[in-house]
């Protein structure tokens, strides 16, 4: 056995019985090798010194232990109870919201609650994206536009003509009426003169 092998076995040899052959080999080496012998003595000394430490005088306080265990169990139970209550409350709220279809919204600086059917959401009109029209269509549109303008101009012109003709007719109607009045007055005068001539007196009720 060499020193390296002996040093590897020394720590364990201090604590356990090595197999007989190994122990004898180690003993023989240690008896011949002062360095290993010193190491061997040193390790035994360490073991003795470790043994010299007094054991601590500690005694478990069993009543306190039972009390602490009960307190911990109570605390755990309370924690579980809180979790259970919180879960039940959350489930209740969720169920209420789901069944009643509760709606909470913040709208124009007002907090609004609602339940029942949800308000119909107006459909969002989606405008088609503008696409350039073909030139021919644009030309046709321009033609239609010009046509409409000319029709409007023509109608204005006709309307002015009609208005002038109407004014002319009104003027003629007024002159005919005036002439008719004059003739009627002349006829009355003639009739009155003829009555006076025939009967010598003015017609009764006639205007003098």
């Amino acid at each position, binding site marked *: 056995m060499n020193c390296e092998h002996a040093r*590897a076995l*020394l*720590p*364990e040899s*201090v*604590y356990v019985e090595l197999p007989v052959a190994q122990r004898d080999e180690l*003993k023989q080496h240690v*008896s011949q090798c002062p360095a290993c012998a010193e*190491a*061997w*003595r*040193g*390790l*035994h*000394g*360490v*073991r*003795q*010194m*470790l043994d*010299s*430490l*007094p*054991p*601590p*005088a*500690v*005694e*478990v*306080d*069993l009543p*306190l*232990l*039972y009390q*602490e*265990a009960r307190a*911990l*169990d109570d605390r755990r139970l309370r924690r579980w109870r809180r979790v259970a209550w919180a879960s039940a409350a959350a489930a209740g709220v969720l169920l209420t919201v789901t069944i009643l279809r509760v709606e909470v919204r913040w709208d124009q600086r007002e907090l609004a609650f609602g339940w029942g059917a949800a308000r119909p959401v107006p459909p969002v009109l989606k405008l088609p994206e503008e696409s350039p029209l073909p030139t021919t269509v644009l030309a046709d549109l321009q033609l239609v536009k010009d046509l409409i303008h000319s029709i409007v101009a023509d109608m204005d012109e006709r309307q002015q003509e009609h208005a002038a003709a109407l004014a002319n007719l009104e003027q003629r109607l007024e002159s005919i009426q005036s002439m008719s009045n004059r003739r009627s007055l002349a006829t009355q005068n003639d009739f009155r003169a003829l009555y006076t001539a025939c009967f010598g007196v003015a017609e009764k009720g006639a205007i003098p």
Partner: protein
Amino acid sequence: MDFTDQALIRRWQHGDAAAFEAIVRRWQGPVARFLARYGLGAEQTADGTQEVFLRVYRSGPSYEPRATFSTWLFQIALNIARDAARRRRPTERLEDYDAAGDDDPSASAMARESATAVQQALLALPEPLRVVVVLRHYQGMNFEEMSQVCQTPASTLKSRFAAALERLRVSLGTLRPDFEESES
């Protein structure tokens, strides 16, 4: 009657409160020693021991014996030790819990001095090495059991153990008692 750990656990799981108290009486010393040697102060050790058995009490009903009870117990203890180390308070002096039963004041002072040096040497070890020493030396676990506690391969733990002892041998060299091989 001296029940095994598994038998006590089964009795406790079937409602025997005395079985749990027997488990506590059996393991409170080793757990406290583990926490103290891990590096917790006296107060943290007491609190940690209480916490370990509180966790055992609360998770005991669902405990299934996939490994030995001690493996499961020290997994809990290691987690608590690591948590406590993260929010470490200034470590209490060793005298707080070691001065009992020595009539000779000078011998007592020397013992305290030596114990303090050993504890400081342990504390100076990196945590992975310290855990291995504590489980191996104070709990007498083999590397397979330690592998389950630490979730680390046994071969790695073996190397760490050798390295830790070597460091302790160097750091405690001046304090070391003159050890003579009795069997050779």
